[in-house]
Structure formats: C-alpha cells, structure tokens
C-alpha cells in the first residue's frame, strides 16, 4: 500500500461519502439534545427513510419523490415517537428502542412482500441521486478525485449544518429551543409551549434522519439490505455528543466516524481479517465516547 496524494484524495472522498448520512442524522440528534430529548429512535427513523426511498423509487422511478417519501415517512414515525415521549411522558429509551425494533422488523417483512427477496434488494432499474458534475476540475485530477462522484445531498449536508448553526444561535425560535433544553419549567412558566417545541424538534430530526437514510440507499450503490443502517443512527448520536450538540461540532464528529468507516472499507483489501476491519467504526465510537466522557468528568471535578 503506497500512500501518495492520490491515495489521500481517495480517502478524503470516501470519508465524505461515509460521513454525510451520519451528519444528517447527527444534526437531528443535536437538535434533540438541545431540547433535552434523548432520541435513540433515530436509528429506526433513518431505516424508515432508507426503505421508503427504495420503495418510492421502485414504483415511481423518480428520485425526487423518493427523497420526499423518505423525509415524510421518517418524520411521521419520529413525530409519533415524539408524542409518546413528550405528551405521554414515556421513557425516552423505551420509546426509542420500540421504534427501532418495530421498524427493523417491519422493513424486513415489507421487503419480502414488496420485492419478494430476503436479505437484500438490488436493481439496475432504480434511479440514484444525481451526482454533481466535477468536469470543470479536470485540470486538477486530485481535486477531481476528492470531490468526484458525490451527490447534491452530500454537499447540502454541510450547508445544512451552517444553516442550523445560524438557526440555533441567531433566531428567536432557536433561542427558545435551547432554552427548553436548559430549563423546561421556566420556559413553560414564561408562556412558551415547550411540549410542542419538543415534539416538533423530534419530528424534524426524523425528517433529517430520513434524508440520511435516503442518501444511504440512493447515494453510492442503489440497494436496500436488511437493517442497512447498521447502527449508523447510534453512531450519529455519538457524533452529536462529541460535537457538543453544536451543528459545526457535529460536522467534526461525523467526519471522525466517516473517516473510521472509510478506513474500515479500505483495509478490507489488506491482509487484516475483515471481521476486525468492519468493527473499526464501532470501536472508534466506543473509544471516542469514553475519552469524551472521561474529559467531561474531569472538567466537572475541577
């Protein structure tokens, strides 16, 4: 394995492709953290989006409708979860895990009914997300490699992070959202409908996770496999935690996990056994969270 500029460019490109689905979900998770909701159901809503995208694509052949279906279906599932968590005061962990298990079973079941396959569905008839045109970069092959074969959604993920940054810290709605996370009772006593704000945030985080799911199935390879998200929703929650629920911090957190994932993919071609390389992103998650929490505890102790 020789490491040169081109190799690094490939790693960079792969990191971006691996991180953006996580980034969408991570931004949703960060918003939930800001309103003091521990939304573990993002794994399930991401899977909802991934599945809805494939189904809509299968029937309509339109990537636009596909994306829309992913967003709306994931938002609805998340909205219901939000109502259970906020309005009926269900334990957030229980509601989230229920959603995840339900969606995992439901998508596997529906896959068999709709596509008549088990395990995975791949078809050349599916229309993937549009790739951006990088031909204007052809004088710089390195740049072309770095930014090649990316979809519009990949770029949008970064723009969204910036938009959410301004939303959270510069707008009144963002201000109130943060306030609910800090002291819900105070917000309510000041006449803010905190429940509605929390449920709305959970629903919106679902919408974002739907985009992430769509990007997962319609981005690089157009396919759906049983539990295709494979814990990316949880990793996104970790990315949001590492990024201190700050939209730009989430970008950094997602990049870290995207890099781990892309390294895992790269190392599959090496002599290291694949069981080990595939565990890499998850090991990175545990390690990163452990270090983060340790530093938090030390900071508190001081």
């Amino acid at each position, binding site marked *: 394995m020789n490491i040169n500029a081109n190799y690094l460019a490939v790693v960079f490109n792969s990191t971006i492709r691996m991180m953006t689905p996580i980034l969408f979900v991570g931004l949703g998770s960060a918003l939930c953290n800001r309103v003091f909701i521990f939304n573990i159901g993002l794994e399930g809503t991401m899977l909802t989006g991934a599945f809805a995208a494939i189904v809509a694509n299968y029937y309509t052949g339109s990537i636009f409708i596909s994306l829309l279906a992913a967003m709306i279906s994931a938002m609805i599932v998340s909205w219901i979860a939000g109502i259970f968590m906020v309005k009926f005061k269900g334990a957030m962990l229980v509601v989230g895990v229920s959603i995840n298990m339900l969606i995992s079973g439901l998508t596997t079941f529906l896959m068999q009914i709709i596509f008549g396959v088990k395990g995975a569905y791949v078809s050349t008839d599916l229309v993937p997300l549009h790739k951006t045109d990088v031909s204007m970069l052809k004088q710089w092959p390195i740049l072309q490699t770095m930014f090649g074969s990316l979809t519009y959604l990949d770029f949008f993920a970064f723009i969204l992070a910036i938009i959410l940054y301004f939303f959270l810290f510069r707008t*009144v709605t963002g201000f109130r959202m943060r*306030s609910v996370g800090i002291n819900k009772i105070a917000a*309510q006593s000041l*006449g803010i409908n905190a429940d509605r704000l929390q449920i709305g945030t959970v629903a919106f985080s679902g919408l974002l996770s739907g985009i992430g799911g769509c990007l997962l199935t319609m981005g690089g390879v157009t396919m759906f496999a049983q539990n295709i998200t494979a814990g990316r929703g949880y990793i996104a929650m970790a990315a949001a935690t590492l990024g201190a629920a700050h939209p730009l911090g989430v970008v950094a957190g997602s990049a870290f996990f995207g890099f781990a994932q892309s390294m895992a993919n790269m190392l599959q071609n090496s002599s290291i056994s694949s069981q080990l390389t595939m565990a890499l992103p998850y090991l990175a998650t545990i390690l990163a969270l452990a270090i983060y929490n340790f530093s938090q505890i030390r900071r508190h102790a001081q």
Partner: protein
Amino acid sequence: MRNQSNDVILRMENIVKCYGNLIANDNVSLHLNRGEILAVIGENGAGKTTLMKVLYGLEHPDNGDIYLNEKKIQIHNAAQAIANGIGMVQQHFMLFDPFTVTENIVYGKEPKKGLFFDLKSANQTISELSRKFDLPLNPTAKIQGMPVGLRQRVEILKVLYQNADIIVFDEPTAVLTPQEVHELLNTMKRLAEAGKSIIIVTHKLNEVMEVADRAMVMRLGKHVADRNIADTSIEELSFLMVGRHLIETEIPKIAPGKDILRINNLCLTREGSVPVLDHISIHVDAGEIVGIAGVSGNGQSDLVQCIFGLQKADSGQILVNGKDVFNRTVKEVRNSGMAMIPEDRFIWGSAAQASVAETAIMGHYEKPSFSRKGFLNVRTIREFAGKLIKEFSVKADSIAQKTSSLSGGNAQKLIVAREIRQNTPILMACEPTRGIDIGAIQFVHDRLVEKRSEGAAVLLVSSELSEILKLSDRIYVIYEGKINGEFKRGNVSEEELGLLMVGSKKL
C-alpha cells in the same frame, strides 16, 4: 405613605380550588388597589400560593371569577396572565443559567431584526429599563454564578419588561441575605410609587409591617381577615395567621455534661481559593445547643459536610465520644451516633419522588428494626412513619404520598422528625427552619430544645441570627473559614455578632 388611590385594579371573587379531598382555596376573595402593596400572609398550606397560581394561570380554579379593572377576564395560562399585565416573581427563579441577563429578560418577547434575534437592541432596552427603575445590572452578564439577590433582580426586571401593572412576589425573601432583603423591600416601595400594584406572599411578619399597606390573612384555605398595616401589630397578625397565641419556648437551664463532639484543627482547602476551613476547633457538650453564626458562604456548609463525611477534609480530628471519625463515610459517621438535618430539604434531606414512609426511614433503613438481610420490614416502617407524622403533626394525606407533594414546612417537619427520633447523642441541625412558617418554626425549635434537654449535643448552623441567639447555649462565629469569636448565652448582642460575622476583630 404613598398616595394610593382607592380604585380597585384587581378583584378575585369566591375562588375555590380543590386537590382531591383537600380544599386549598375555599371561597377566597381578594382585592387590590392601584399603587398598593398587599401582603397575603398565612402559614404553609394556608392556600396563599394556590391563590397566586390561579391568578397567574398556573392552576385552574373550580369556581370563581377574576376581574381586572372591573372587567371579567379568563386566565388559562401564564401567557394570558402576562398579556393582562400580571407578572410574577416566583419563589423558585425561572432563569436559564447559561444565558445572559438580557436573554433571560426579553424571553418570550424577543426583539427581531428580519429573521434574526436582535440582541443588540435588546441589550439596549434592558440597560435603559434597569436605569429607569434603578435596578443596576449588566445586561450581557451570564446568570451562572450570580448571587441570589441579583438573580431576583433579573426576575423583577423580567416582569417589568413584560409591562406588568400587577406584580406578585411569592416568598421573595426566603433565600436572601439581610442586606438583600432590605434592598428588595426598598425596590418594592419604589415600584409602588411608580404606580405598580404589588402583592407579596409571605409569612415574615416584620417584612410585612415594614413594606405593606394592607395584609390579607389566610388560614386553612380561607380568607380570615383583612388589616391595614397602620392599625395592626405583629402580634395580632401572627395570632390571626396561626389561630392561637404562640408561647415562647422556655429554655430550661441545665449544666452541660462532658464533650461528645470535639473537632480539632479541621482544615480544608480548595484549589485556587483561600482556605475554606482554617484550623477549626470547636466542641459540643452533652445537653448543649451550640450555634454557628455566620454569613452564608463562610465555610459553615463545608464544616458540616466534612463532619458528616459528605466531603473529605485535608486534616484534623473529628472526635465522637473520643473516637476519631475523620473522613469516614456517612454511614460510619451516622453509626457512630450522629444525625443531621441537612440545610436543603430537597437536595440533601429527601428524594422528591419517594413516599413519605420512605423519607421517614432514609439513611436509617439498614437498622435492624427496618430491615433484615436486605429485605425491608414494611409493616414496621409504616407504623413508624405513621407515628412520626402524628407526633410531629406533619400534614400529609397518607404515608404513601410523594414527599414532593408536601409543603415545604411539612417536608421539613418530617425530616426533623426522622433525625430526632433516631435518638442519637449528637444532632446537627442546618438551617432547620429555612423557609417554613412561624408555627412550624416554633415547633422545630421546641423539638431541638427538648432534644438538648434530654442530654444530646446539638450543633445548630443557621443564617438567622435571631434563631442562633434564641436557642444556643454557646455561640461560635465563623468568618472565612475561621472561628472569629466564642460566647456563652447572654454574653453577646446581635450587633456584636453581626460585626464579627463580617470579619471585624474580636471586641
């Protein structure tokens, strides 16, 4: 006297509010004149806070009407109360610690510039407002780390920013230092002069006498009397509130026995600050109440926590009957014969979600009478809890009820009962009467004196000087972690103690 007009700005008519079987407000009527300061007084559980919650839209009355400027209004939530010009400075501050003063004040009515929150003009508005009402504050300072008095000022400005004509203060002085209380009362007078109408909910009668124009007395959910402050006295008001005359505790003279608790050269330092405890040496004898007087924050909390094992000290000796319990665990300290009434009943003294019965045995559940081999002896616990609430007249519907649903005074009585009934030779009482009403204060005082007369050593930490002076056989003054004076009962005046508490040298 302010020139208050006799036009009525607010009337609440025949308010009824029940919680289950409990009638919190029984046909209560209230009227408030423009520019007037009305004190709503009564013991804990008399229904004052409920009445104010109804006014502020936090509770919905079962019956009754509210008239503002003689027009009937409906208040279903806080937002509607605010829109009607009714503001409330709550007892538990409703602030967002990581936000700035301005952000907290403009909350809910934020100025906008296009899509964005216009923080710049907000800051300007707030500094003008703070100048106009002479309530100095730095608009861009964060709430985090602010003293209580300033936090309350933020709350007051918040209400003023919302353009309230009627301002309700719910137990505003419970958490303030004497200087802060003085300042607050002046602020209230100023606001009334500026045409605001004020309701102060309290049970501190000397403050009522100083600041209010009129007092409305509540007892057991009923409105029992109305008095103009000019025509009444503390004695009359307290009689109306409690429904009986309070008899001052007689403190029998007894000779102290041998020292049970002795602390030698206890030291505690924290990084980057002056020593928190600086060679503290004190002792408490059998049959003696020893008071620690000090402005809060001078080490008394740390002292108690170090003695009790909640904090590790750096060096020193803590002798209980000659046995050193320095830096032992809380359990070991308790087993050595110490009980404690902690300074905050909900942070340290109980778990809000636990039942009354559970609270009654907290910290003692491992004693053989309450549990055996890890299993709780439910029947004994129930009997014990039932006995405690009867003996200490804790007002509770049942022993299965959540501790958080007890009023502050009743929760405190329950904790006092628990700690006293363990019959330990040493009792540490920290702020045992903070935020509870005079009837309950008297009760707690009587129990402490009783405990001491039975031969126990009682260490009393309190920021209420009158309490220290009334109960203590001996007094230590603590200042910046050092003992700054020791006196026997009757050998020192309140003024002298006050001076030592703020650091002046021995007289």
